[in-house]
Structure formats: C-alpha cells, structure tokens
C-alpha cells in the first residue's frame, strides 16, 4: 500500500464529506460570528473594498475585530500589524500541533492548508483526524476548512451589506462562544483536558488586561503545561 496522500477517488470523497459533516453542527455559530465581523467592519469607516479585502486576505475574525478600531483611528501601521500578530499568535501553537499531518504536501498545498487553520477547524481536526487513514487526513481537513471558509466569508459579506439592519442586542457574537463551549465540554472528561482548560482559563482571566489579547498565548501555554503535569500525576487511589 502506498502512503501517498489521496486527493481523488471514493475514499477521498468520503473523507472530504466526513470533514464537512463534522463541521456542519458549528455552521450556525460560524454564520453568526461571520455576520458580526462583517457588521463591525461596515461600521468601522473602512470602504467596502477595504473591508472585504481584509476579510478575504486575513480571514481571522478575532484579529480583524481587534484591529478595526485601530484602523478607524488611523493608528501607526506597525501598531496595527503588531496587534494582529499578537492576536493571531495562538495559531503558531495550532500550526505546530498539526504540521506532521501535512509534511508530505507541496509548498503551495501547505500554504492553502495553513490559510484554513482557524479555531474551529483546528479543534475539530485534532478531535477526529485519528479516525481517518493518515493519507486521507489532508482531504478530511479540506472538507472541514473549505466549508468553514465558505460559510464564514458569505456570512461576513452579508454582515457588511446588511449592517445597520441587525440590532446589536441580538447578541449574535454569543453564538460563537456557545459553540466553543460545546467543543470544550467533551475534552473535560479526562484529567489532562480538564487541567488544560481550568489553568488556561484561569491564567486567561488573570491576564485579560494585557493589550491585544496577549494573555491568550501565555494562557494557552500554561494550560498545555498543566495538562502535561496532570497526566504525570499518579492515578487517584480508589
């Protein structure tokens, strides 16, 4: 059996389908989050091409939301870019965690995969990739990532155009938060997962005052370390 990556054929189609079926339950949340981002961009004073250029090129909801006030107030370019970099820093951790699955792909294929790495695609892929053969995992990730991309881009386009017609008190941004909670809950069933969440969350709360969500990266690292420690502790005596 060859270990070349499969992109075509029945098995690849099935893995791609599994990807979009896995992310389907999160679609309402992605829709709401994209809509909220689109609305915020429309109200930031960016022109429509600028706003959509940002959405399409950056494709990073939380970084976009973080830089909008800076763009609107004409902050120095390096401050804007640095802020985005800090908000996006958690993706370095995701990228490190996923890299072994994509090592055999060409440079351009890896570039395309990297563009699709967001919070939802990362968590879903890490959860279920092991259920698929190694050579099918890239296409499984594409099923997740492309569905996520299309839904999010369409929703943020709708948000851009329809801004002003969706009352902010609907609290659509909360839908994304609830979806993240839903992803988190099954991870709490084992001790390292629980420790990662509890310590990551506690450090995140403590460092919330840092600018540009810098606390997020430190909190994530603290959570990972806590999980490693928790895994090494001796099992509880019954």
């Amino acid at each position: 059996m060859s270990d070349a990556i499969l992109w075509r054929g029945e098995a690849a189609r099935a893995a791609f389908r599994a990807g979009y079926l896995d992310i389907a339950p999160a679609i309402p949340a992605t829709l709401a989050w994209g809509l909220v981002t689109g609305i915020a961009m429309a109200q930031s004073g960016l022109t429509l091409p600028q706003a959509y250029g940002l959405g399409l090129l950056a494709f990073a909801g939380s970084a976009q939301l973080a830089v909008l006030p800076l763009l609107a107030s004409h902050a120095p370019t390096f401050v804007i870019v640095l802020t985005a970099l800090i908000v996006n820093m958690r993706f370095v951790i995701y990228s490190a965690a996923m890299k072994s699955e994509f090592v055999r792909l060409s440079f351009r294929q890896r570039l395309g995969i990297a563009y699709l790495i967001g919070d939802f695609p990362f968590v879903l892929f890490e959860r279920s990739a092991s259920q698929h053969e190694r050579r099918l995992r890239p296409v499984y990730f594409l099923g997740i990532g492309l569905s996520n991309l299309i839904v999010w881009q369409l929703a943020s386009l709708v948000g851009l155009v329809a801004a002003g017609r969706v009352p902010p008190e609907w609290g659509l941004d909360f839908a994304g938060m609830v979806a993240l909670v839903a992803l988190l809950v099954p991870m709490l069933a084992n001790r390292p997962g629980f420790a990662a969440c509890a310590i990551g969350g506690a450090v995140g709360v403590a460092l919330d005052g840092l600018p540009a969500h810098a606390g997020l990266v430190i909190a994530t690292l603290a959570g990972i370390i806590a999980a490693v420690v928790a895994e090494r502790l001796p099992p509880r005596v019954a």
Partner: protein
Amino acid sequence: MNQALLTWIAIVGVSLTTIATRGSFVVFGSRLQLHPQIEKALRFAPAAALGALVLPALLLRHGHVDFSLANQRLIAAFIAALIMWRFKSMIWTIVVGMGIATLMRLMS
C-alpha cells in the same frame, strides 16, 4: 502618503500575520523536528486554547470576575454546557444557549 494607501498597507500587513502564524510550522517549519515530548504536549493545545478563549469571555464583566446571576451569558453558557454533556449535540447546545440568553435578556 495618502490615507487609503496606508490603510491598504495595514490590511496587507494584518493578512501577512495570519499566514505567518498559521503557516509557521505547517508551511515554513515542516522540516523542523519537534521534540517528541513537545509533540505529545501539543495534543492538549485544543483544550488549553478553548479554556483561554472561553473562560475570560464568560467570567469577566467590566474587568471583574462575576459569578452573580446578573452575568446572564455565564448562566446561559453553563446550561448549554450541561446540554452538551448530556445530549452530545452541538446544534442543540447552540439553540438552547442562544435561547436562554435571549429569554434572560428579554425578561431583565
């Protein structure tokens, strides 16, 4: 330089941070050999990142930890978490979470 051009430069810069971070290991460092212990530790990155994203957003109101009933989003998220725990359905978790948040907002 005119403002429109500066804005576009910033937009391109922001976009480069996306590809630089997401591509850091997948694109540019895929030949780097991570220590096996680090690879193992990174299995816990999803739980840690989700905790760091979710808990501050739910617990903090106006910069302070708020466990009171006035923190409606925390209550809605907690009930949503129970739904997920019991029924393992993301779609119902979102429906119930949003429903409770909306109800509480309308009643308060």
